[in-house]
Every structure is written in structure tokens, then in C-alpha cells.
């Protein structure tokens, strides 16, 4: 079974702090994604990566950056956390983009910025 793990289930940070959210998948998937989920807004794509050291902006990249140094790990970075980044963050992986495949999600990190 594919397993996607996220470094924390719950995280509380202060405004202005640099925040790292880590995601690891164990199935050698090419593609990885970061979403945020907010009530009434559904899932919104922040960044994604089709391969190591590659990254693409999603729909709401402002205030975020990402790093993919190894195939299995995709990190989301909040350079200077703000209260409007309080949200549920979901990481997902997918085999590759050559055909129709499903995404596998991690359990999520609920981030609160105070």
C-alpha cells in the first residue's frame, strides 16, 4: 500500500516564523502535490512537482515555496508565517502524469498561526 506521511498532525506557530511542512511517500511516485483546505473553499493547489528538483506553481503559491531534493520528499515552506495561512495542509503523491492515476493523500497537518 502507498503510504504518504506528513511530519506533524498539528502545528502552532507564531506570525513571522519560518515553517517547514514535510511530506514523504514510499512508493517511488514521480509527482507530489501540496494543497491547503479551508472551510467553504475546498482543496486549493499550492505547488506541485513532477520530478526531483522540479516545481510548478499551483493556484495559490503566494507566501509559499517548496523543495524537492529527493524523489520521496516534498517540503512546503512558509517563509514568514501569517495568520491567513492558518489552514489544513494536505500532501499527495501520484505515480506519474503520463496516464490517468489517482492521488494518494497524507493525513494532513493542521497549522495554526497566532
Amino acid at each position, binding site marked *: 500500500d502507498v503510504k504518504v506521511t506528513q511530519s506533524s498532525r498539528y502545528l502552532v506557530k507564531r506570525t513571522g516564523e519560518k515553517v517547514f511542512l514535510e511530506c514523504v511517500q514510499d512508493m517511488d511516485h514521480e509527482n507530489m502535490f501540496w494543497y491547503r483546505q479551508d472551510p467553504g473553499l*475546498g482543496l486549493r493547489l499550492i505547488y506541485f512537482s513532477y520530478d526531483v528538483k522540479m516545481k510548478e506553481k499551483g493556484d495559490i503559491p503566494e507566501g509559499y515555496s517548496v523543495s524537492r531534493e529527493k524523489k520521496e520528499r516534498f517540503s512546503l515552506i512558509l517563509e514568514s508565517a501569517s495568520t491567513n495561512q492558518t489552514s489544513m495542509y494536505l500532501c499527495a503523491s501520484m505515480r506519474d502524469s503520463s496516464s*490517468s492515476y489517482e492521488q494518494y*493523500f497524507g493525513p*494532513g497537518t493542521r497549522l495554526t498561526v497566532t
Partner: protein
Amino acid sequence: SQQGEEDPQALSIQEGENATMNCSYKTSINNLQWYRQNSGRGLVHLILIRSNEREKHSGRLRVTLDTSKKSSSLLITASRAADTASYFCATERVGNTPLVFGKGTRLSVIA
């Protein structure tokens, strides 16, 4: 950019009844997928239907796709309390772009 829109936003039914959720989208797609999310957890993939398919079954799930109307429906038959969750449709648009998720339908199954 939201592609899929689920309807209704919330649905409450008795155990044993069928639950139907709908999804409408705007542009041409390669496939449409349905996911389930239990409260406070990640999403779990349920079923994928390709643009050249009209209907697909998986256990108690039945998905239909009407590309002419740009809509899909998810039917859960003989619902159980454990089916209580949010259900999302996601579309893979033509052009090899990432999945776009709708806002979800919250299903409550009352025992």
C-alpha cells in the same frame, strides 16, 4: 481555479437509504475522480472514470459521467453510518494538468 462543483453541499439520510451526489465541471476532461474524506483526515480515492466511459461500479458505489452535460454523479447504495464523510469530485483536464477539486458534499448517515 475551481473546476468541479458538487451538489448538494450537504446531505443527511437514514442508514440503508441511497445517497446521490452530483458534480458539474466546465472544461473538457481526461477523467473524473471521486474521493472521500473523513473528518480531519486526508482524502481517499474511491473511483476513477475516464472520459470515454459512461458508468462504473465499485462495490456499493456507482458513478456515471455525461460529458455532453459536463456532469457526473456518485451513488452510494444501502448507506451505512461509516459512509459519513465529505465527498469530492476532481477532474483532470485535457492537457495533462493537475487535478482540480470541487468543494465537496458533506454526507451524514444517521443510524
